[in-house]
């Protein structure tokens, strides 16, 4: 029986269908029909062309994977058993397709695909039949995945041509990408992306777009859009690097499937070294950012921080605390010794506040929180507390009540003896409210300082604080300035009262910030609470009567104040970001999201992003001046720049993460994206000319690229 079957197979193979499907060359599952095929037009002999291949026919919606499966999945694998003298090569993969699944992107095949394998014959087979055995594993997925395998056997006649599947192979081999001999490709690490440059491509492809497939897994962020452009004969692309990159290859082969059906393979050599991340010490902080700075670099950073701090005094950000600063100066007009101690105390207050804020921020970030510089004003409760504090200071300056009447006499006399404490607290308050804006030239430095070893990072913030306080230190050190200040006298009383009004202006600003964060109800609740607080302060300041009745009414008013704040506090919660975004975005500006930026860039649009916050006065100033300037708006319109606004008034992990990617830690930040270029960052206080030329430069590049 066995012999008979064998004989029939023989006869069938030799007479009817040479090298056609014998029993065992097909595996059929519910998802895939797999068949082992062969092509040997000149028979099987040394030096002759011999191909084997697995033809996969997928049911609709099912797919198998390419050599790099992408974000999930597994490549199909072969295990061959061939007669001695024959060796099978690797799969010569046809060009895959993109297979998106949710937020992920995979690479593979649906429909019909042939995975061809070249066979090398080194010595003539001793038999008339060439027996091929293949164990294949593949993963077939729709949404769910099924690992499948098959064992295939095929007998080929040695002395005769095997051509019955010639058309299948012709089609399958044509689907492979073509390697070009005279093409060169290079990749550079630019920020968080790989920038590719390929030359020597056929002229007919110029201006066309390609779908790009990386052969090496674990390098690029697969689903991130690849921005492409042509610079003359050179094709350029920018592909974000995966945040979980596991490979550091010296060369990255790419398959470029150009529109129109031309599939090419290029091998991009890495022109820049990969930053080392592998030997990450457990427990120890990250290797790369924690590399201690060389001393000259650190010294430069400190110097810049000091300068940045001085300049911060001239930024619109300090408007809200202007009167505090004037007050600090006015207090300098005593004796030289008083001047010095008060200036030093003010400086200490500013520096300590900067250090405390930076320390808190570094600790919170180490805990995985997505926060940035200015985080203290992202909490509506903090804003409300500051508004209450400034109301009290204002009422105090206006003479509604004296601090002495609030505090037990021992502390009051201590205060009177020691106005230094006043200066110290003034410094702390000034820093807490005025620091959130990023100083000019300091954007990149502050972003980096937060990633340095804690000691060095804090030193940069201390230098920044020192810079902020420097003008006042100088003023007290130079006798000319002291002489220029008027002598203390009765005018001080009036001056003090006048200064109350800028304080109330600060309260208006804080109320507006709270309104942005917590809505109109939150802002109204704050005003009610402030009203009750003002009433309580006035009551304290009256000193009309003494005795049990006063004690009783005092307790009642204190209870009323506490009660009002307790009632209002729950309203000081951030409202949904959507309604805030809608309120802050006009016809010109769209709400920002990383996806929107990618989408617009993929469409070839230029994109301008304004990272802003209500509490950042510099941001508001820029928004109403430069960014609203008719010439700037005309330039934006002429260049079809998409305008996006990212509002960081309340905490927002996505915005914080994007700022980190840009190497920044606070606002304002202005970014222009154009073509495949790296994003361009503008200064913190951009001029009309700066914005216009930045857009125009990018325009020139884009023109060059499109011709």
């Amino acid at each position, binding site marked *: 029986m066995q012999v008979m079957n064998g004989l029939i197979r023989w006869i069938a193979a030799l007479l009817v269908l040479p090298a056609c499907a014998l029993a065992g060359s097909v595996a059929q599952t519910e998802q895939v029909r797999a068949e082992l095929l062969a092509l040997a037009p000149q028979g099987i002999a040394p030096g002759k062309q011999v191909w084997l291949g697995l033809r996969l026919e997928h049911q609709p919606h099912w797919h198998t994977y390419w050599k790099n499966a992408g974000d999930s999945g597994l490549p199909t694998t072969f295990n061959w058993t061939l007669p001695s003298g024959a060796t099978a090569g690797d799969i010569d993969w046809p060009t895959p397709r993109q297979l998106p699944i949710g937020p992920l992107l995979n690479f593979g095949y649906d429909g019909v695909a042939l995975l061809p394998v070249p066979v090398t014959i080194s010595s003539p087979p001793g038999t008339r039949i060439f027996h091929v055995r293949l164990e294949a594993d593949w993963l077939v997925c729709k*949404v769910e995945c099924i690992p499948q395998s098959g064992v295939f056997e095929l007998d080929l006649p040695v002395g005769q041509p095997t051509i019955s599947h010639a058309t299948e192979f012709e089609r399958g081999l044509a689907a492979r990408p073509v390697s070009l001999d005279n093409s060169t490709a290079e990749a550079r690490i630019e920020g968080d992306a790989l920038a590719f440059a390929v030359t020597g491509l056929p002229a007919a492809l110029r201006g066309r777009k390609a779908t790009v497939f990386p052969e090496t897994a674990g390098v690029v962020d697969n689903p991130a859009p690849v921005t492409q452009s042509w610079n003359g004969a050179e094709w350029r692309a920018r592909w974000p690097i995966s*945040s979980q990159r596991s490979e550091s290859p010296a060369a990255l082969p790419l398959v470029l499937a150009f529109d129109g059906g031309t599939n090419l393979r290029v091998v991009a050599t890495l022109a820049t070294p990969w930053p080392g991340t592998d030997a990450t010490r457990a427990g120890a902080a990250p290797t790369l950012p924690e590399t201690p700075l060389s001393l000259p670099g650190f010294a430069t950073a400190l110097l810049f921080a000091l300068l940045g701090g001085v300049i911060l005094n001239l930024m619109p950000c300090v408007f809200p605390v202007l009167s505090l600063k004037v007050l600090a100066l006015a207090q300098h007009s005593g004796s030289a010794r008083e001047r010095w101690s008060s200036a030093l105390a003010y400086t200490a207050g500013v520096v300590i506040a900067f250090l405390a804020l930076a320390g808190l921020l570094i600790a919170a*970030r180490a805990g995985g929180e997505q926060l940035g510089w200015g985080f203290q004003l992202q909490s509506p409760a903090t804003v409300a507390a500051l508004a209450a504090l400034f109301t009290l200071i204002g009422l105090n300056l206006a003479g509604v009540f004296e601090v002495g009447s609030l505090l037990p006499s021992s502390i009051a006399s201590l205060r009177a003896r020691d106005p230094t404490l006043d200066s110290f607290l003034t410094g702390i308050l000034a820093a807490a409210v005025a620091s959130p804006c990023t100083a000019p030239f300091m954007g990149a430095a502050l972003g980096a300082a937060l990633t340095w070893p804690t000691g060095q990072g804090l030193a940069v913030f201390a230098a920044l604080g020192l810079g902020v306080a420097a003008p006042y230190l100088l003023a007290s050190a130079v006798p000319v300035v002291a002489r220029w200040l008027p002598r203390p006298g009765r005018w001080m009383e009036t001056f003090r009262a006048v200064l109350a009004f800028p304080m109330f202006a600060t309260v208006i600003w804080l109320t507006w910030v709270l309104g942005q964060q917590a809505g109109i109800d939150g802002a109204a609740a704050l005003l009610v609470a402030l009203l009750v607080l003002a009433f309580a302060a006035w009551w304290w300041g009256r000193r009309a009567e003494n005795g049990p009745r006063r004690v009783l009414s005092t307790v009642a008013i204190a209870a009323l104040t506490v009660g009002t704040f307790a009632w209002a506090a729950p309203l000081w919660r951030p409202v949904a970001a959507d309604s805030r975004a809608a309120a802050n975005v006009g016809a010109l500006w769209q709400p920002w999201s990383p996806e929107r930026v990618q989408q617009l860039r993929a469409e070839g649009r230029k994109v301008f992003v304004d990272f802003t916050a209500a509490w950042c006065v510099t941001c508001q100033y820029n928004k109403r001046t430069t960014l609203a300037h008719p010439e700037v708006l005309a330039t934006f319109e002429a260049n079809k720049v998409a305008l996006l606004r990212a509002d960081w008034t309340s905490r927002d992990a996505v915005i914080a993460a994007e700022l980190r990617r840009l190497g920044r830690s606070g606002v304002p930040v202005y970014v222009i994206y154009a073509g495949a270029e790296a994003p361009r960052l503008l200064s913190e206080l951009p001029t009309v000319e700066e914005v216009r030329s930045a857009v125009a430069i990018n325009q020139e590049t884009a023109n060059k690229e499109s011709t």
Partner: protein
Amino acid sequence: MKRSASLLATAAATIFGAALAYGAASVGQSAPDFKVRDSNGKEQSLSAYKGKFVVLEWTNPGCPFVQKHYDTGNMPATQKAAESKGAVWLTVSSTAKDAGDYKSNSEFNAWLKEKGAAPTAALMDDDGKVGHAYGARTTPHMFVISPEGKLVYAGAIDSKPTARKDDVKTATNYVTAALGEAMAGKPVTKASSEPYGCSVKY
């Protein structure tokens, strides 16, 4: 003049070099904190386990690659070994509620029990927020976090990216290796690898 120019260049290079390393949940960086309910309805957060090694394991009982490591007992054994050394093991399901193989809390608990699994907790990340924060792509996809909250390993469970159960015996378990090295205060030799498995069903 030349000198100050090179100083500036050094500062700039340092600043931009440091900026390179950013990105959500990458090895060597802070692991994102999260708040999510577990399969017993209790709120779990990463910060609650500060001071301990934490392993995150993305899973989906319907996935053949997950079955490879549960049916062979590999995953439960890895869990128990890690926990016996003081680590916290959080199994995470980011499978969306409308996915075919979504499991309710009680179904998920029953599955863990049946497989002899013993994670510290099973996080039901139905809306995929934790998964997105970590960039979890496959089931299984593994993350090891140091007591200081830094990510020290991200990637596959082991070195053999197949669905074949036999391969478990001969594969190198990357999670056990990373935990062993990190707990001994040594650098993790293989700190990242390419995860393999089914897609997370976001």
